[in-house]
């Protein structure tokens, strides 16, 4: 288990309702309504907690004829806390994790469900957004300006600014034939 996985798991477990769910699942596999009845919580609240537990790998689900059953992933709980705290943290990995965390924070602040809420004013943040939008362009393909506009308009109405800034940031290049991703042309 990596350090960030361990942190996510501990954070998830620091909630009495979720701990009670795990205790119930340690006895036997259960479905949402049964857990709701046992723990005196609503079914939507149980589903909410189960989603969090599933995300950190503490719980898995499987379908039976009538119900979706939930089971404890006991292997996640086998490493001792001593083993987890003795695991070395590689500084390069940590730096990369911090960069990625910052990138994700910017993406989640400015993008929702694949749409750009607004174009960041800060260059550094806009660069991150533009790099994300660049993924919509196939490597090695030359696009007409109209095609570039259509793709960028899917993300934000101000596609002209995005298109110009793609060039300004040297993420794309253009000539009389059209536009292409810089990284793939090198």
């Amino acid at each position, binding site marked *: 288990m990596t350090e960030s996985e361990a942190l996510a798991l501990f954070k998830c477990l*620091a909630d009495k309702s979720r701990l009670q769910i795990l205790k119930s699942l340690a006895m036997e596999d259960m479905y949402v309504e049964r857990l709701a009845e046992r723990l005196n*919580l609503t079914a939507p609240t149980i589903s*909410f907690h189960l989603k969090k537990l599933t995300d950190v790998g503490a719980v898995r689900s499987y379908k039976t004829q009538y119900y979706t059953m939930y089971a404890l992933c006991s292997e996640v709980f086998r490493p001792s806390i001593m083993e987890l705290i003795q695991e070395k943290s590689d500084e390069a990995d940590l730096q990369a994790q911090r960069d990625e965390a910052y990138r994700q924070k910017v993406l989640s602040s400015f993008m929702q469900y694949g749409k750009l809420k607004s174009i960041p004013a800060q260059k550094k943040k806009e660069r991150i957004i533009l790099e994300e939008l660049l993924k919509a362009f196939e490597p090695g393909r030359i696009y007409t300006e109209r095609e570039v506009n259509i793709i960028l308009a899917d993300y934000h109405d101000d596609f002209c600014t995005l298109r110009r800034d793609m060039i300004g940031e040297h993420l794309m290049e253009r000539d009389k034939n059209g536009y292409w991703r810089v990284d793939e042309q090198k």
Partner: protein
Amino acid sequence: MNEFLQWCDERMSACQQRKQELLRDQRGDEAKFEQIRANVYGIYRAVYAALSNQPEALMKKLHAIPAAWEVSLRLAEEHGDTEKAHIERIKLATSAEIMQEVPHD
């Protein structure tokens, strides 16, 4: 004080009390849900207090409040965002409960 405003105050106070109990019981997410409910009562209370002397504008505004939450719920469901969907459902359920209590005269 107007009956509806008083009812909102009582609901907000009950939410705050449950929130504190849940926090003491180490149930942080459920405490957050109680705060969300309290905020919804607060929104309706504020709108009612501001527009209670303009019945038409008041009803129009009250009916408009959950529109953004409905959109947000639909988007969350479409994208499998369970946490967001759960929160939007709480807001909508609270909103429906409040609308039952709004005086219609």
